[in-house]
């Protein structure tokens, strides 16, 4: 039971972080389908930091540096989306998909190159971080408390305050609803959209490093992040683009994802003798059903997906 709660919380943390990233980007008017790739890049940044940072650094700074590395990678990578979609008015769906493919491919190539350079016979795309991982975890009895749970709550509060209580957030949302109107009162739509995408890169990067630290202590970059970026988008839609509702829906999705890892401890679930793949499929099936039931009433930011063109009415 404790295991289930623990996994639910950590997977929900990932989903909340990434979905908030998507939320910022979409509120500014850019659909960020590249979240999956951004997560991979964030994970890569964090993993490289854990590989090269001396383990002697005190815990707090160590964690901070790893997080900064992940955020940096995520932000830099998301600027690829921003430059193509905002300045060159590229199709946001194509560029997002390209970023997903590019993220996994680039991370694999890079990690393999690093591994091979260290040892010619090592052609794997793995980075292990058994020791560094311990810095992210505190034990409360049996419960494995992960600092990311705190980070997520902070990130959630920050997102809520920024979006609804600051001038910047309200302007950002205006750019996603009616960019022409926003422009007419002197808001620079391009800058706002850049800000939205870069913030989503930061959140996505955080989500990526959180994801690879969630269960395992060795990561194979060939696998990417198994559709988690898209699950986060489903969470965001189910959460109606609002941070507090995103948090609640992420808990639901996180629960079903955690069930896949931990169902063997529940006797009645084991007794049902369902194949394990059923539990693997669960989060995806649930998200499809939930989306089917809720999407017809969903109110997405009105101008999302449409490149802003100053000369248009």
């Amino acid at each position, binding site marked *: 039971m404790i295991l289930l709660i623990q996994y639910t919380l950590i997977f929900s943390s990932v989903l909340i972080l990434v979905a908030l990233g998507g939320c910022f980007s979409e509120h500014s008017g850019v659909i960020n389908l590249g979240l999956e790739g951004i997560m991979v890049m964030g994970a890569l940044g964090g993993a490289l930091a854990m590989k090269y940072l001396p383990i002697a650094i005190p815990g707090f700074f160590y964690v901070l540096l790893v997080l900064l590395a992940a955020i940096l990678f995520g932000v830099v990578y998301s600027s690829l989306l921003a430059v193509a979609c905002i300045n060159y008015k590229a199709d946001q769906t*194509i560029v997002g*998909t390209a970023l997903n493919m590019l993220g996994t491919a680039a991370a694999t*190539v890079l990690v393999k190159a690093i591994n091979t350079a260290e040892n010619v016979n090592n052609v794997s795309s793995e980075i292990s971080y058994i020791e560094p991982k311990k810095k992210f975890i505190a034990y409360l009895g049996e419960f494995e408390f992960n600092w990311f749970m705190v980070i997520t709550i902070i990130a959630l509060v920050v997102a809520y305050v920024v979006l609804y209580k600051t001038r910047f957030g309200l302007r950002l949302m205006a750019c996603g609803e009616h960019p022409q109107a926003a422009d007419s009162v002197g808001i620079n739509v391009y800058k706002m959209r850049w800000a939205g995408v870069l913030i989503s890169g930061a959140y996505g990067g955080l989500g990526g490093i959180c994801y690879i630290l969630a269960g395992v202590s060795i990561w194979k970059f060939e696998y990417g992040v198994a559709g988690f970026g898209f699950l986060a988008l489903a969470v965001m839609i189910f959460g109606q683009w609002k941070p507090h509702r995103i948090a609640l829906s992420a808990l639901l999705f996180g629960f079903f994802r955690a069930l896949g890892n931990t169902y063997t401890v529940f006797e009645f679930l084991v007794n049902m003798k369902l194949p394990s793949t059923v539990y693997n499929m669960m989060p995806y099936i649930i998200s499809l059903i939930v989306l089917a039931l809720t999407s017809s009433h969903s109110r997405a930011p009105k101008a999302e997906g449409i490149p802003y063109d100053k000369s248009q009415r």
Partner: protein
Amino acid sequence: MRKNIWKTNGMQSLIASLICIILGLLIGLVVLLFINPKGAFGAIGTLLKNFMIYGKASLRLKYFGTTLVKTVPLLLCALSILFSYKVGLFNIGCSGQYTAGCCAALYAALKWGWGWFPCILFAIMAGAVAGAIVGVLKSYCNVNEVISGIMLNWIILYLTNTILSNVKEPTSPYTYQLSQYGKNALLPTLGLDKLFNNNANVTMAVPISILIAIVIMVVLNKTKFGYELKATGYNKNAAKYCGMKENRNIILSLVISGAIAGLGAALYYQTGIQQWECTTASVPGMGFNGIAATFLGGLNPIGTILASYFIQHITLGGAYVDKTMYCSQISDLISAIIIYLCGFVLFLKIMMNKAIDRIEEKKALKNEVSKEGSAK
């Protein structure tokens, strides 16, 4: 006045695609130079050479055949994405529909011993059903087709692994070989294998896939149905206003799109060239590479044939790269860069048109000046 050839859409698409390829290769080269400056040029050369690295002509011919066989599923996935894209839908669920087709074809062949033709039909149906789910969700529940497509990809992948575990070899994660247990399902070769130095995998699949490309071009450009689909893609509300059934068109286009992807899987796996691995942990890349081929081909079925061949060519070329320096994924990296660059195609075309306009204006001005001169 004769139309300026540089102004035609086809020409501009071709130039834009070539620019994307060249830039993609250059960026790839830079990445390789960073990783290991010694062999970068050689590695890019190997990617581009693929089967040409063999010295013997007979071997080259054989591996050229293999490249063609592997181009078939990529081409059909690309056509599947192209077809739905014309209706304004981005069928990223193509990978899942492809997987569904593979599951259906292999299961029917290995478990029930069906012949090749019913197997193909079954695969087409499986793909079409997977496409239909996305279509229904899109048109009746307003679910974004990209997200539902991705979710279905994973669901279908896990389902396929479970179902095909029933027909797998007891000691390995692979399904039984078709050549031993499902001979009926192997596609007829029509004598094509003789052309490629007895490469038994070259079958009727190659000409069929090209035929499908042509059929799709005709349907999209020359029929009322194709016109309706494109109209729905341009403006859903306008199409509805004109009396077209926009929901039906959306579902139908995704069904057809799924069917094409399913056919692609059947035409690939029923050559016996590869077995399904029942522990596959990620969705097959065919559908995603198909996106690259579609946009690189300038959203034109004939262009897509060339683009899919190119992408498959460099992907297979990746296998020959010197493993002590680079990994085979560099070809994935380069195709991903190329898709990213394809996002700039619109911008490139605008730039081209501007340049052409400027040149034409100058010409017109010159003509006028000379006319005035002669009139005096």
